[in-house]
């Protein structure tokens, strides 16, 4: 067990955990930021997507030791008031159903819009294809990303 200092949602935090602990469990169970979800543990579903230095990454595939000195952003830190353009667009388009994958979808989409302000539909689909939504909200996710790009 080691004390490792990380920066999460703009704040420095010290975590007592094994260096190989997946970031997912650090975020969820140690830091109680439960918006980031566990789906498959193998980087196959995207429910655990967070940003590391602004890039969308699967937190189940990243160990605590790999993020020392890096900035981690979770859904709770995407916008201090929960009013990121995507969050507003996901409400406007009434995207979530069960909602479980939605944090991951939004974090994945936010990384796209951060580097590509006006993505084409093809770019959106290709960027989002690793994120499973079992409720099948895909058409509304596309519409919400397009809306966010339009309204941001």
């Amino acid at each position: 067990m080691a004390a490792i200092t990380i920066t999460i949602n703009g704040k420095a935090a010290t975590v007592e955990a094994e260096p190989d602990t997946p970031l997912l469990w650090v975020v969820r169970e140690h830091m109680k930021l439960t918006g980031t979800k566990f789906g498959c543990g193998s980087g196959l579903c995207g429910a655990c997507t967070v940003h590391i230095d602004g890039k969308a990454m699967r937190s189940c595939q990243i160990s605590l030791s790999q993020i020392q000195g890096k900035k981690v952003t979770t859904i709770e830190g995407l916008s201090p008031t929960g009013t990121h353009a995507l969050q507003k667009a996901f409400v406007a388009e009434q995207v979530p159903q069960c909602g479980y994958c939605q944090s991951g979808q939004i974090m994945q989409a936010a990384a796209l819009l951060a580097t590509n302000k006006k993505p084409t539909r093809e770019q959106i689909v290709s960027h989002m294809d690793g994120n499973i939504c079992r409720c099948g909200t895909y058409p509304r996710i596309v519409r919400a990303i397009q809306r966010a790009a339009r309204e941001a």
Partner: protein
Amino acid sequence: MTIHVKDGSIDTSISRRGFVAGSAGMTFAFTLGGLGRGAEALGATQPTKFNAFVSIGADNTITIICPAAEMGQGVYTSLPLILAEELDADWSKVKAEFAPANPKLYGNYHPAFNGAQITAASVAVAGYFMPLRMAGAQARKVLLDAVADKWKVLVAELTTDKSTIIHQKSGKRISYGEVAAFATVPAEPPKVSEADLKQPSQFKLIGRKDIGRSDVPAKVNGSAQYGIDVQVPGMVYASVMQSPMEGAKPKDVNVPDVMKIKGVSKVIPLPFGVAVLGDTVEATHAGVKALKVTWDTSGATAAGFDSEKAKDDYAAKCKDANAETKVEYQVGDAKAGIGGAAKTVEAAYWSEYTYHAQIEPMNAVAQVSEDGKSADIWTGTQFGALAAGIISGILKTTPDQIRIHNQFLGGGFGRRIWPDAAIQAAILSNITKKPVKLILTREEDLAAARPRPMTHHVLKAGLDAKGNIVGWHHRLVSENVDAVAAPPRFQATGGKDYIGARGLDQAFYAMPNVLAEYVRENRGMRVHAWRGIGSGYNKFAAEAFLDEVAATAGKDPLALRLELTKDKPRANAVIKAVAEMSDFAKKRPGHGMGIAFSDYHGTLSAGVAEISLDAKTGKIKVHNYWIAVDPGVVIQPDNVHAQLESCVVFGLSAALIEEFAVKDGAVQATNFDSYPVMRMSDVPEIHTRIVATNYPPSGMGEIGLVTVAPAVANAVFQLTGKRLRHLPMTAERVKQALA
């Protein structure tokens, strides 16, 4: 179904009560007399409880109890909205709370469940519509009586709007919150009848397009709480390697190896698997992955079961004239009709096992009390009352001592009817005397799959000289889902299968002679309700076969369906609607169009698929899916569209790619690589239309799925002339069919 723990030292049978508690002769009395005690003590600080479903605070906050589980289908909004409508509530001040497990107060009296508090079969809105309206109207009546009394005016002179009571004559107004602060809820609540309810034209909330889902804001900022998010002080973590099949017990376990993993505190072989307990999720998951277990399968029916090899047996049973059958639907004499026909058509259909693939793996937090006689359970469940019933049996206490704190469900689709995670967590908490948070790995969630069964169908139809259907015979062979998932109902009906036989009937088609029957296979799989239940595969077979019949009769598939439904106006209307939406008759070069119709628990729908096919790879591409639906009165129009979109995607996923094989009784898939589900790049344009009627509302959570597989198969036939009779219609199977 029995849960044994430690060689039978804890043993319970699922009590019949868990399914049908308090169902006999109950009426609306259960909602209207729901306080269960005398006149409510009043105070400005505590919200006043008007009945089992609604409380109003002095600050005008209205709390409405949602008796059903929210798994994405929208009941957390639609059920409170129904009550709020009759209460004439200010919707912006309404909050919803999930009901505790208490079927006496919160059971669903839809005929499908007869008072059980279960969220399944898309009947929450249908079953709770009238009770919730009555509860809202009753609370409004109490408020009006209190104000009439205080102001010394006639109740008839009072009106309500947005949580305000208005006396037009004097211009006086008072908010519900102010009234709640002084109103006395009588011990004998005022009677309300249907005459007290609004006419649909008076609805202010029901049917509004601009009212969104109440759970959406929390689901875009990470604050919505699911079972997996619950933490309680002092809890330990657990994960369980699940028995690969029902009845398999661990024999040899490499306990010392697993105990070496940092953070693992206990490894406990149990009759349902091997539990690893520890300080962290990651330790318990690493522990489960490091387990090496040999299983004693002597008590497991599924031992040695191979789904591929079993197909010969299924096929033989489907042809066996002496097989023991259960009749699901009968009109006239199908055998005579087919026997005397000018022409007959026959075909065999198949579907493979499918997994729910809910993205939140099964989990629960359980805290059994020190004396072992009560427990708190935090989990997302479709059937908390069943969890309470089973766990109370294990702890040798009563169901009311098991407090189920229902959370949002990260997908249900039928998987969260069976409360296995809650049961296992409770057993582990009882052993360790600590709160236990159990989270399955995805791999173990798949090992513990409760799948839609593998099915086989033989259909025969007879045509007269003019091509009219004069006989229809559909025989299904599969495991009996009720026998596993609803044993009390299985026993009460003498071995019928309500879940598996759904959709075998032909209640909407005018056919003079129909026999729909099923034969039971008993393979020991944990078969279960899966979105759309039997209708998913039975309507695939029936609606695809109907196109075969149409082709033999030289009829157009759309025209035939319109002809068969000419005396069923609601069915006819959705078929016409989808034909118009899709411009069905229009030829699209290189593309095929297929149509299908289905009902599901009162809702009617028709769908059209437009597909193309890569002959080289065998991959079907779905370009468009049009779907029309008649769910009666529409509570939330946008959510009706959303549920249709959801069902089309889910249905396409099942129709095209989802399956697992079984070898030696075990599921042959481990994660989303070996059990892929539909991703964004394969989703077609989905076009939805509501054909609104004023019939009582029926459900929307599943109907949209049912037409998808047959419409796709029928589209492939139109394009290629080849029939696809085996779900899923994978590229491999398409290539075989084209060869």
